[in-house]
Every structure is written in structure tokens, then in C-alpha cells.
């Protein structure tokens, strides 16, 4: 409810609606681009780490880091992984530039070209379903999968970061290859699901012939926040999730655990990050039949407040030894993993029901980190082996990506530091 209230009261400055911008005059792509530049300038200047002010506003697209990582987590997700179809490096670069231009417009709340004022014989350039909607804090974040760096492909073999490892098979994994991997990914987050879906749809359309969607995932509820002052969201198991997540304003922690440093081995990735995506199916029905006591034991926190075992408040420092040895929170804690820390940005998903009448639901886990080998991998080794939660979950999809640094200005483009 709070979100709705804030949304209604936030229609003021700096949040142009797609319709009002269209009205500015004829809005061809060129005019649109100029308008977008103006909007970004008007809104921007701020760091992308600062939480966006309100649900309807635009999040600056330009910055040192890509937005959609440390920036405040929006309510909705459409995540897409792509296979690159073209064998031509120049064509891939052209696509990345086109994508960047489109992302710049869409994150500012603008359509990508004409939606209804073009030639009657031609299909409209923008598909139109986001007209009249606010920017809705849309962020678009790109990542490059291991396949892109393969030998004899785009001449990037020597640029594959050491930390971009192929994830090992963890015990209990039941990965569907059709929902795993990908040469590229785009994470679209927004407070309005239609804005997020529109964004992926435009990019997929621009990409036809050069790239093809390999798989995509919708998420409807954030499960972690990067804004510790806000109420911690709950996952599909009913527990608060992400209480101790890395804060989007804690620059020291971000530099230590999330952003790739200049001396980390891959200069082109400086200011970037690594993303691990896991589709984690939950056995919802069996979980729901589990006693409250066992549920709380499994997590190591109480269900109401979210307080760690033996403590009374959610944000009290957890005392790990008070928890059961196989409690999820205990095993995932940095102290159980030599300090391994990741920034979680996952979403709940429900893709209807499966053929057996069970909810096809779970967590679409997204984690950003400075080095996969020191972040997700040690934590997941620990969890896959010992976590009490494993009885109720199964990892069914997996992907890993190197996430380039931010697009600096209107001349910059996604992947410049890698390809240029």
C-alpha cells in the first residue's frame, strides 16, 4: 500500500509521462533522442547509487556503474537471456549501440521511435504499450555471458575475465538447459510490469536476426532491497529476505564486494560486476504443510519479525551458533564463508501451475559480486551441501554474466570498453 500512496503523490517534477513527451512535437527518433538527453540532464547529475526518489520517476541511465545493481530495487522484473546469432563482430557492436540508444530513451520514459505517427505501410517502430506510462524507475542492465568470449567467435578470447567462470554442477541442481546460460542478458526492472516487459520486447525486436531470446523470466515481487531503511520484502515462503543485504549507499561495501576494481585483472570491466542468475523452484505445497517451528528452524529467523534466533528485532546482529547447524541464514552468512558477500536483487516468480496442479513458483535469484569465485560459488557450495532449505527448493536454471561498467554519456554505449 505504501508504494501506491507514494506513486500517487509523486507525479510532480522530473517524471515525464510517455504521452506528454510524445506531445512535445512529432517525436521522430532524432527529436526523441534530443528530448531524452534533456530529460536525463534535468533529472541526473546525481549518483546512480542514490535511491530514486519515487516510483514514477526516471533513474539516470548514465553513470560510472550501470543502474539496476546498487540503485533501489523496483517492484517488477523482466529478465532476458539472448543467444548471439550473428557471426559478425561489427554487426554485434552495431546492435549494442542501437540497444544503448533505445535503453537511453526507454529509461527516460520515452518511446523508441514512432508508435503511431509513422508510415501507414510500415509497422510502428515502438510497440506502444508503454505510451502514457511513467518512467517507473525503469533500469536496463546488460551482461556478457561466457559464450561471447569463446575462441574464434568475436576475437574476445583474450578478454575473458578469469573470474567469469563456468559454474560447477552443485549437488541437487536440476538445471534445464533451455532456461540456462546465454551470451547476453538484459535485466529490466521497473515499478510497472508493463514498462519492464515493453523494454525487453523492444530490445528483442531490435535484435531479431542478430540475437535471439534464449529464455526469459518475469518476476513480480522483489525479495531483497538495497535500501535498508525500507521494509524488508518477503519471499514466497513468507519470510523476510535480504535483511542484511549490501546497501546501495554503502560505497565502501560496494567497492569491496560488488564493483570490479581497476586491479582485478580485467581493465575493461573496471566499475562493472558479475551477475549470477538462478531460477530456484520452491516446493510450495510441501513447505506450506511444514510446521511453523520447522519453518523458523530452517531459516534461523522467526517468521513474524524476522529476528535471528535468540534475538528480538529483525536487524539485531545474528548469533549464528544459536541457530541449527543447517539453518539457511547461518550457512549463508559471510562468517560461515570466509567473509563472502554478495548483493542480492532477486524476485519472486510464479509461472502459473505445472501439469500436476502445483504452483510453479519460487525465487529468481540475482546476485551481483566482485568475483564469482569469492562470492556466489563458496556460498552455494556450502548451501548445496548442508542447507536445510534444500528439502523445499530445487535450482532449475542457471547463468553467469560479466556486467560491464556504466554508460558514461550520450556518446558511450554498452560494451564499449570490451569491444572498442
Amino acid at each position, binding site marked *: 500500500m505504501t508504494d501506491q500512496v507514494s506513486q500517487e503523490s509523486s507525479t510532480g517534477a522530473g517524471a515525464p509521462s510517455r504521452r506528454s513527451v510524445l506531445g512535445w512535437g512529432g517525436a521522430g527518433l532524432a527529436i526523441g533522442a534530443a528530448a531524452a538527453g534533456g530529460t536525463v540532464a534535468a533529472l541526473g547529475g546525481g549518483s546512480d547509487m542514490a535511491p530514486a526518489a519515487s516510483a514514477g520517476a526516471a533513474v539516470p541511465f548514465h553513470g560510472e556503474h550501470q543502474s539496476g545493481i546498487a540503485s533501489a530495487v523496483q517492484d517488477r522484473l523482466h529478465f532476458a537471456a539472448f543467444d548471439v546469432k550473428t557471426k559478425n563482430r561489427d554487426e554485434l557492436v552495431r546492435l549494442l549501440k542501437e540497444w544503448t540508444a533505445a535503453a537511453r530513451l526507454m529509461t527516460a520514459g520515452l518511446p523508441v521511435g514512432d508508435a503511431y505517427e509513422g508510415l501507414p*505501410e510500415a509497422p510502428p517502430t515502438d510497440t506502444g504499450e508503454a505510451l502514457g506510462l511513467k518512467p517507473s524507475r525503469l533500469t536496463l542492465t546488460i551482461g556478457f555471458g561466457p559464450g561471447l568470449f569463446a575462441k574464434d567467435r568475436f576475437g574476445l578470447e583474450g578478454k575473458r575475465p578469469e573470474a567469469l567462470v563456468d559454474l560447477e554442477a552443485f549437488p541437487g541442481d536440476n538445471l534445464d538447459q533451455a532456461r540456462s546460460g546465454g551470451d547476453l542478458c538484459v535485466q529490466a526492472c521497473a515499478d510497472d510490469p508493463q514498462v519492464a516487459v515493453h523494454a525487453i520486447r523492444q530490445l528483442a525486436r531490435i535484435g*531479431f536476426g542478430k540475437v535471439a531470446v534464449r529464455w526469459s523470466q518475469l518476476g513480480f515481487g522483489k525479495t531483497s532491497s538495497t535500501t535498508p531503511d525500507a521494509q524488508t520484502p518477503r519471499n514466497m515462503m513468507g519470510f523476510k529476505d535480504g535483511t542484511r543485504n549490501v546497501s546501495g549507499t554503502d560505497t565502501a561495501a560496494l567497492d569491496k564486494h560488488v564493483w570490479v576494481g581497476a586491479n582485478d585483472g580485467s581493465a575493461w570491466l573496471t566499475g562493472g560486476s558479475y551477475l549470477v542468475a538462478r531460477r530456484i523452484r520452491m516446493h510450495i505445497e510441501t513447505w506450506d504443510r511444514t510446521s511453523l517451528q520447522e519453518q523458523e528452524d530452517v531459516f534461523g529467523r522467526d517468521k513474524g519479525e524476522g529476528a535471528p534466533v535468540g534475538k528480538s528485532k529483525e536487524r539485531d546482529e545474528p548469533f549464528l551458533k544459536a541457530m541449527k547447524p543447517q539453518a539457511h541464514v547461518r550457512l549463508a552468512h559471510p562468517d560461515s564463508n570466509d567473509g563472502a558477500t554478495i548483493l542480492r536483487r532477486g524476485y519472486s516468480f510464479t509461472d502459473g501451475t505445472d501439469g500436476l496442479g502445483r504452483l510453479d513458483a519460487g525465487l529468481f535469484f540475482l546476485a551481483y559480486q566482485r568475483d564469482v569465485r569469492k562470492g556466489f560459488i563458496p556460498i552455494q557450495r556450502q548451501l548445496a551441501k548442508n542447507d536445510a532449505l534444500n528439502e523445499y527448493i530445487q535450482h532449475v536454471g542457471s547463468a553467469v554474466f560479466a556486467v560491464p561498467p556504466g554508460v558514461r554519456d550520450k556518446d558511450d554505449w554498452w560494451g564499449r570498453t570490451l569491444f572498442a
Partner: protein
Amino acid sequence: MRPARLTVLSAAAVVVALTAVTGCADKGDDSGSGAIKVNATDSGCEVSKTEFPAGKVSIEVENKGSKVTELYVLFPDDRIVAERENIGPGTKATITAEIKAGDYAFACKPGMKGDGIRTKVKATGQGSGEKRSPELDAAVASYRKYVVEQAEASLPTTKTFVDAVKAGDVEAAKKAYAPSRLGWERTEPVAESFGDIDPKVDVREDGLEAGQTWTGWHRLEKALWADNKIGDDEKKLADTLMTDVTEWHKKIGTAEITPTSMANGAKELLDEVATGKVTGEEERYSHTDLIDFKGNVEGAEKAYELLKPTAQKNDAELVKQLDTQFAALNTLLDKYRADKNGYEFTSYDKVGDAERKELSDGVNSLAEPLSKLAAAVAK
């Protein structure tokens, strides 16, 4: 088969039907003072005047040759304005037609074959200012010829199929089924512009309206593959199919085709692939989807090749993309046939999910730029 869709093509077809009615041939005594006389021989087609006022026009044809002849009044893109068939040696016929101002051709066809012996004529008067591009007229005329040829070629292949069904020969009928559909699949958007034929020959069971009797290819497909038998009903339906395919052939020359409708038709053929063939819905019993798929792509490519000179001038980058993607999709399809010139494709139930995804990606890669062809031609 696909659900009804309001296209330029189908809307235009209604107009054509009306034109055909007004352009009816009769032996009436309409041969007033303004009548145009045509002397048709086995090697000539002499027209008494090549300029005449627009409006109701009477044309008197006399066949002075030894072969049966026909007379056509054609638009510059070869669409038929009016026609008279079966004019026997030594006989006369009169055609009356409502002809608007503009350029036309009269064509005599001794022996009722070929493009005919042509004379350019002009109907003078108001409203003749319609801008026509000779290049695009030629493209449309060539495409019309292709469409007519496809319908013509479907007559013997359909007859082979129909004869096998009527003989109760299940195996022979199965063999002849997909080849009989190829011409239809190549030219489906034009064929479908005659709204009444498509639901008779190409409807699937799930596409039937309440009260509609299921006829056509797919009804027989189900009998042959799912039921594996031919009964009296099927034999009757085979006759009906032959009648309907013949009707399609008869009407096809009057279809209104424009450069834009050709381009959109090409895109629609890819839509057919995307919604019906890639999913395996079109040929759910026979699994001959890839043959239809190839036919659709061939038809789209034909229209594209004819429009290419114009598109090249307006959008060279688009032409480059389309050349690449047509070649890529054809190469992909070739994986599913041993003889690269034949139409024996892998049965679609043997094509796995990953391969179907690859085919679907290929279709999307081509269909997206193809959707921009109409604008590149209309510029």
C-alpha cells in the same frame, strides 16, 4: 489457413468482384456507334481505336482465325478488367465494361495460351492522373503471372491426390497430399483474398465455425493419417476439393495485387510459418509442415525478388539484411531434406524442440526486416 484478417488484399478483392460483374460479357446489342472493333486472328489482334472516352465501353471481337481465342482488357499490372473466353473461329462476341480513365492493354489469346498479342489503349477523361511506376507495374505483372502459374500447376497435382483418394489408395493419397498443397502455400495471401475459397480448402478442424461442414485438404489429411481409411464421404470430399481448386484457378487472375500487398503478402507468408508451421499445428496428422514451410518461404522470396530493384533504391541496407536472412533460412531448411531440389522433408514429429527453436529464430530473423519491405516499396 488462418483466421480472417482485414488486409488491403481482401478488402480490395470485394472491389474486384464488383468490377467483374459490371465487366460481364454479353451478346447484347450494345454495339452503339462508339464500339471498338477487334479483329482477332491466329497471329494478330487489330484494334480499331486505341483511345476512347472512359465510361461504359463496348468491344466487338471477331475471331477470324482458326483457333479458339480470348480477349482480355488488362490494367498495366496485368490485372483483368474484363475478359471473354472461348470465342470460336468465325464467331463474334461483344464485351461491355465500365472502364475508368487510364492506361490499359487489350490482349487476344489465340489458342487460349500465353501472354497474348497486346495493344496498348487509353481511356481518356477525368481522373486519369493516377501515378504509376512502370517498374512496379512490371513487378506486379510478373508476380501475377507467378500466382497464376502456381494455381495452374496445382490442378494436375491436386488431381493426382484426388484420384488416389477416389481409388481408395491410402498410400498413394498420402504421397500426393503435400505436393498438391505446394502452389497454395506459395501464394496463400493472394489465394486467401477470395474469402470463400480458403475456408473450403484449407480450414483446420479447430478453425470451423458453428454449422460449417469440414471440407478440404485437412479433412482428408485426418482421414488418411489419423483414421487411416477412405470412405464414401472422403471420396465425395475429394471431388469437392477438385472443384474448389479449379474455382481458385479460375478466379486468381482477377486478384487485386499492388506492390504494397505483394510486400505485405510476403510478410504474411512468414506469419503463416511462425504461427502454423513452426508449431506443427498446420499439418498435425501428416507432419508435412516443413514442405508447407518451404512453400511459404519460396512464395515470399518470389515477391521479394520482384520488388528488390525498387527496395534497393529506397533502402539498400534492408535489401542486404533480407538477402542474408533468406539465404540463412533456406540453408537451415536444407538440413531437413536430402535432395536439395526435391520436396521430401523430414517429418515434423521427428524435429526436436531445440531444432524447432532454431527454425523459429530463423523465421523471426527474416520476418522482422521483411515487415519493413512494404514501406521501402511505398516510399
